[in-house]
């Protein structure tokens, strides 16, 4: 067992840090310093900067624009970007549909879609959940019927389609066989958002920003060539994502950054002249959370090291989503509690509360989503109970 990075890995980390310092435009750097909220155009600007460096899709094969990095370097890159507060890139192309097209797509599909994902020329969103198919995703109803001319006609509604308002393309799970058992009649399609009949209606989140949309499909004609994988075989693609190495879902870098802010807030906030960081009750609470985060981080390292050695994701990876979301929520909650009255401020003009606090309240709100999206923590526990502990159902 060895916890240390090799000299080469350390050199790579230093290279990443130096590059970020240099490459990050001033506007983004300012927001990053206070964990501000990035607009879509800022995210895409950063996407293009990373792309120019060749680091936008570190986990992709080099021939499709990947960085040719091993697992650990990929992790180092991701962690350093998170620690620097860089904008989080939209995961839908890079992390989700891209890898699925790589694994299940035809060569033509790869050539058509992958380069534009890497270049940031086409933005993607995800059409999985429906109003009545959330945790029970397989009960989805969006229908895709052949029109006899080699096309499929889509009708129905998707929900929680994050950033659909900016997306050029959406990948959807749709029902192609209504008679089959529910997991068996689903197919995976790529849909141009400009196709007539597609409408995305943004939904305001509790954070006060429109993070996701309801997306409606009314007689949307999709060419057969946009079917990925086998007809009625979409469920396999949906599940395949879970088998991929997903150490990023623990959001360790993000929570580390928030905990750093927690300490900054605790040092700058006083009670009767004493900084809260020196008050035992607050100090213990911060220490306890830091230890819990350390446990998560080490668990993430274990998953990473396992992936590095080519092992399939082990039991440790299944807990990353659960603990990652819980700890992220606790970090924001602690920040809010430390802020006292300042935590009440909501989207006020700059200067109302200290700049390093300003983004906390909406992020605290949105952090509640982390234990819900991507398979709620309850669903994760069902999966662990069954697949890892082997409990009967």
């Amino acid at each position, binding site marked *: 067992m060895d916890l240390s990075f090799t000299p080469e890995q350390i050199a790579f980390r230093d290279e990443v840090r130096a590059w970020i310092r240099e490459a990050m435009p001033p506007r983004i750097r300012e927001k990053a310093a206070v964990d501000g909220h990035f607009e879509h155009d800022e995210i895409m600007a950063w996407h293009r900067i990373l792309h120019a460096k060749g680091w936008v899709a570190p986990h992709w094969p080099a021939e499709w624009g990947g960085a040719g990095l091993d697992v650990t370097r990929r992790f180092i890159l991701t962690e350093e970007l998170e620690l620097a507060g860089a904008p989080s890139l939209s995961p839908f192309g890079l992390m989700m549909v891209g890898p699925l097209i790589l694994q299940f797509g035809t060569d033509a599909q790869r050539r058509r879609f992958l380069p534009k994902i890497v270049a940031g020329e086409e933005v993607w969103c995800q059409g999985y959940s429906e109003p009545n198919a959330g945790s029970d995703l397989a009960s989805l109803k969006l229908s895709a019927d052949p029109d006899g001319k080699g096309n499929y006609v889509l009708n129905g509604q998707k929900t929680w389609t994050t950033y659909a308002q900016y997306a050029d393309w959406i990948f959807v799970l749709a029902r192609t066989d209504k008679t089959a058992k529910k997991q068996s009649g689903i197919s995976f399609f790529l849909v141009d958002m400009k196709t007539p009949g597609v409408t995305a209606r943004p939904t305001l989140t509790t954070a006060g920003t429109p993070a996701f949309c309801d997306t409606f499909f009314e007689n949307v004609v999709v060419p057969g060539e946009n079917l990925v994988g086998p007809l009625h075989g979409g469920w396999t693609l949906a599940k395949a994502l879970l088998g991929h190495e997903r150490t990023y879902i623990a959001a360790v870098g993000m929570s580390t950054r928030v905990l750093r802010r927690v300490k900054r807030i605790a040092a700058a906030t006083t009670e*009767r002249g004493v900084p809260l960081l020196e008050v035992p009750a607050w100090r213990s609470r911060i220490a306890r959370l830091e230890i819990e985060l350390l446990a998560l981080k080490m668990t993430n390292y274990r998953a990473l090291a396992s992936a590095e050695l080519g092992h399939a994701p082990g039991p440790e990876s299944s807990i990353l989503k659960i603990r990652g979301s819980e700890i992220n929520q606790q970090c924001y909650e602690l920040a809010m509690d430390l802020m006292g009255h300042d935590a009440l401020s909501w989207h006020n003009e700059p200067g109302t509360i200290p700049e390093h606090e300003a983004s906390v309240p909406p992020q605290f709100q949105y952090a509640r989503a982390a234990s819900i999206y991507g398979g709620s923590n309850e669903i994760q526990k069902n999966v662990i109970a069954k697949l890892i502990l082997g409990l009967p159902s």
Partner: protein
Amino acid sequence: MNFDLTPDQKLLESTVASFVKKEATVSRFRALRDDPVGWSKSLWKTMAELGWIGLVFPESAGGLGGSFVDVAIVLEQLGAGLVPEPFVASVLCAGTALLRLGGPEEHEAHLAPLIAGDTSLALAWAERGGRYDPTWVETTAIRNGDEYVLRGEKVFVLNGHAADTIVVSARTAGNPGDSDGISLFVLPRDTAGLRIKTIRTMDGHKAAMVSLDGVVAPASMRLGAEGAAAPVLDEIMDLGAAAACAEGLGVMRAALGMTVDYLKTREQFGLKIGTFQALQHRAVDMFVRAELAKSTSILASIKVADPDPAERRSAVSAAKVELALCGRYVTQQSIQLHGGIGITDEHDIGLYFKRMHVLNALFGDEEHHLARFAAQPSF
């Protein structure tokens, strides 16, 4: 020992409940979120006519001579409906200051129109460096003959953006943190040098940041004896905290009710999700928490009127800690059990989550009250 409401109190409870249901709905509150005031002057007038604003004031001051338990009944219902009208700021904060420290003249000038529903008030006590300590007053009031000159900054003044009159704490002697030397001044909102900046708060309410930029206040605007306001501020903190507990009960009850309803109607995997045992037990834990918070809230609403400040502080601090423990759990789990729609602004459950967080912070958070509880002689 008796926890039952009197017939009058039961009537009050059902009156407020049906009023909230008909005239002060959550959808009305939603619309008011975009309003610069954030609450309705006509509804405020109606509340006054129904006697709620004057409820707790003694008859000598034009009120009905009710108890805090009566107020708690009103607040629980207002909490359940997320009613944003400035009851706590006007009645319990500024109102108590005027009642305790003012004479018949001040009562007539300020409490009478308040009780009539013609005005609203605010109390500016919090300062940036003081957290939840009302004795941390850096704002100064320097006497100059028959006048004082006030300079300083007050933060997060509830209803400060809309109040006709703001009661402000300032230091006439001593240093931040001293109990002695704090005085209260009654300032009309158009007082020269009084700068009021409206801000939004997380729960969809408005409040104000207030600067006193050389405000000149005649000595007649000072409430009570010079430098002696701290005990009343301490009492007001407890009234505010007990009010937050009562309102929080309504928030929890509503959030629990919405969640249980959702569990009974939402289907996944071909079943009502309320059939899943893990979610059932979660709902039970929420229920248990809400009942526990109710118990300590009752304790606080009775003991907040106790003549012994230590008894008062101990009960109120216990209730505020319990509110934090329970309210947080109940509203967080409400969101979780609603799933994705719990994160959308269009669903009401998120509004309850936000309001609960604000109630936890107002008048002292969990750590503040935990330390305060352990500092009382009864510990």
